[in-house]
């Protein structure tokens, strides 16, 4: 019984097989369970911060009170969140971020002075996004637009 053994070649083969199985199993576990959870968490945090930054830039784009005033302010948005493009639009007095994934997105209220009577338009991520202001009959109008560079 003492002399029964496995030759070194077979030992190396067993070692390689075990290691390959281990790495495959670990990768599958991580990518099936842990990695998507982390990516979702980061994606929703990114969406919240992007929305807050966009709202702040729009509020800063309101020009001082004057009779004839036009302004254009460029806003830098991240091109994708969670690997997909998104859209930012205005709904009532709120700014909304639309994203294809269900957990990513949000809405927030805009704090604009009373002389801004209307705000409309929308942004699609990845383009040259600007917010313009002009005066029309009712008051100051803000618009979210995309400029061709």
């Amino acid at each position, binding site marked *: 019984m003492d*002399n029964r*053994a496995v030759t070194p070649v077979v030992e190396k083969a067993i*070692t390689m097989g075990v290691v390959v199985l*281990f790495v495959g199993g*670990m990768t599958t576990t991580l990518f099936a369970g842990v990695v998507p959870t982390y990516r979702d968490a980061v994606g929703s945090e990114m969406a919240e911060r992007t929305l807050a930054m966009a*709202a*702040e830039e729009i509020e800063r784009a309101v020009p001082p*009170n004057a009779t004839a005033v036009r302004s254009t302010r460029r806003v830098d948005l991240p091109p994708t969140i969670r690997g997909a493009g998104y859209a930012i639009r205005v709904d009532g007095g709120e700014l909304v971020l639309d994203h294809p994934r269900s957990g990513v997105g949000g809405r927030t209220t805009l*704090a604009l002075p009373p002389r801004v009577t209307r705000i409309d338009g929308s942004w699609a991520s990845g383009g040259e996004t600007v917010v313009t202001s002009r005066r029309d009959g009712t008051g100051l109008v803000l618009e979210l637009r995309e400029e061709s560079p």
Partner: protein
Amino acid sequence: MRRAFEVRRRFQSARAERGQTGMDRGQTDTDRGQTGLPALAIALLVLTVATGLGLAVADGALASAERDADESRVASSLAARIVGVDSTLTERENVLNGTRLDRFDANELEQSFPVSAGYDVRIRVNESVVAETGDASGGSSFRRLVVVERTQRRTLQPDLGFDRVVTLPRRTSRATLNISPPQDTTVTTVRANDRVILHDADGLAGEFAVALSRFETTAFRFTAVGPLPAGSVTVRYPAPRTTKTTLVVTVDG
């Protein structure tokens, strides 16, 4: 018996050829291939533990990077709106009116600043709470340096000297002059810092509200035909007193 002995001897000589005698028995263990496998198992176990630790560290890092970006943005926007030019509380940019600030409460906060709807907001000026909707402790705060202005109305009845000049002791942006000269006197011109603000060749009399420059001290000079005793001219002006304090806006969403 003899054959077994011979077989054993042959066996021993064969093993002696291979360099193994009874004394070298222990070395045969190294020829067994599977003795390396426990080391592999321990190595894989250590790798699993390291991966688990790495995931725990990543979890902690993600949890500590939570920012509540929405609350911070609402707090800073609300603070900017409160101290802005269009606000109901301010005289000018960053200057809050003291009496209007005393009257400010949660209802007016919700009406005048609609961005605060849906959040618990607390506004403090100089460490005392001015308005509060809900419980805002644990939210994000935003501080701004502001000036609170309280105005006192002052009246001056000067004894006009030989030059008929009276200087206001405080800088103010407007004043009300009450000119009531005696019967035979005609006040023709009133100047403020060499700028003519009132002129009537037939004589000025009555109450006049004049606008002055806030940035320089105003000296009134009266040009009149006839004597101007004390009490002919009364000046009423607002004397603002300003205090620099901190405005803290706390928003909890």
